[in-house]
């Protein structure tokens, strides 16, 4: 059995502050301050987010419910496993190329749009010197970002969801000790 955060109180506090700034300033990669030990099926960056935000009150859907990862998460956080993506507060996507459609996850209730899923997507990497332009709350003018390893129709699927705002999904992309958050309000600008 692997350990979790070496210092649970302060490691999760520092991770949360980065996540909050990441969500407040979308499409900008931010360095995660602590990457904990993690079973092979879960990226250490994704594990840092899960240890920071999950406990017995949350459920997670794992794209690949690897036994070692499930044991590790249950032991350290007490979270519940969801059978269906629709039921989960969090979803961990380790192979974006074969991920289920974004429409499969919980988008919230019109009166309670916060009751929607947060997706943690393990990608291959980020580039900020190229890629699409993004705008929306938290972005002063526009940010450029390319996320490597997403299915080709990912952004079309996401754009289709945006018509349902305030319902929607919030995304955390992770790679190389970095996190990029993309709340439902961030728009991909057509070139």
């Amino acid at each position, binding site marked *: 059995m692997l350990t979790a955060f070496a210092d649970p109180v302060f490691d999760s506090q520092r991770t949360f502050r980065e996540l909050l700034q990441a*969500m407040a300033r979308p499409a900008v990669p931010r360095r995660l301050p602590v990457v904990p030990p993690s079973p092979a099926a879960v990226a250490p960056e994704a594990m840092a987010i899960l240890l920071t935000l999950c406990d017995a009150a949350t459920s997670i859907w794992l794209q690949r419910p690897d036994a070692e990862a499930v044991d590790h998460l249950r032991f350290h956080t007490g979270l519940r496993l969801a059978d269906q993506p629709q039921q989960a507060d969090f979803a961990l996507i380790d192979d974006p190329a074969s991920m289920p459609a974004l429409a499969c996850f919980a988008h919230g209730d019109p009166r309670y749009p916060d009751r929607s899923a947060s997706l943690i997507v393990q990608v291959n990497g980020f580039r900020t010197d190229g890629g699409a332009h993004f705008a929306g709350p*938290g972005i002063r003018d526009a940010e450029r970002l390319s996320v490597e390893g997403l299915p080709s129709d990912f952004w079309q699927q996401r754009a289709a969801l945006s018509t349902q705002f305030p319902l929607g999904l919030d995304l955390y992309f992770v790679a190389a000790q970095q996190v990029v958050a993309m709340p439902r309000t961030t728009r991909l600008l057509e070139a």
Partner: protein
Amino acid sequence: MTPRYNFAFLDEDTKRMLRRALLKAVAIPGYQVPFGSREMPLPYGWGTGGIQVTAALLGPDDVLKVIDQGADDTTNAVNIRRFFSRVAGVATTEHTADATLIQTRHRIPETSLREDQILIFQVPEPEPLRTLEPREAETRTLHALADYGLMHVTLYEDIAQYGHIATSYDYPVLVDGRFLTSPSPIPKFDNPKLDRSPALMLFGAGREKRLYAIPPYTRVESLAFDDHPFEIQRWEHQCELCGSGDSYLDEVVVDDRGTRMFVCSDTDYCSGRRVEAQA
């Protein structure tokens, strides 16, 4: 620091619940996220919502500033600052520029905030429609449908009765063109500072068990009409201590014959200007 408590008073489960709610609040600007408000060692109405948000954010490297109506030295501000230095051992400051976290009751500092600062508002009533519609189920529906006619009618009634919009504080705003939001009872003088602020702004209402957020660089419009545009308060006076002509002024009675003076509500801004003038 008092060692009997967990860091920053709240237990880790409560902080995680608050942190999940805060992330959703930032993702849906202006929308009120319900949260499980805890009993705090001071009563509702004394900033328990702001305190819980601050406790969920606070780390050992933070520098905390707390203001009450702009002042660092009033009872509420002093108590909250002392509370966090006892239960978290964090550094505190009265200087806006030195703070990483600023908890505020009913003002936004005059000094412009930066991207690395977070402003946390204490909110008594998070629902801007509550005085017009008492049922939570109904106000939730109005927000879901973005049906804000009630608020426009209220502002119109002000114009019909007084000739202008008489609301001078807690002046309703539309965040990113979607959610009608209470800016907390800040004077409408401060509303323009909400618009495209470089700093993240978080709002906590302890008694009402709601929190919400305005992300940085987000459009925040104060409601108005084409022929009655939004206007902020103006004074014929200048601050009698620092001479400022563009800050929010408090009118203070200084003797028993009704003599009055006008002074800056933001004590740090005012004393900073006086130090500068002497130098």
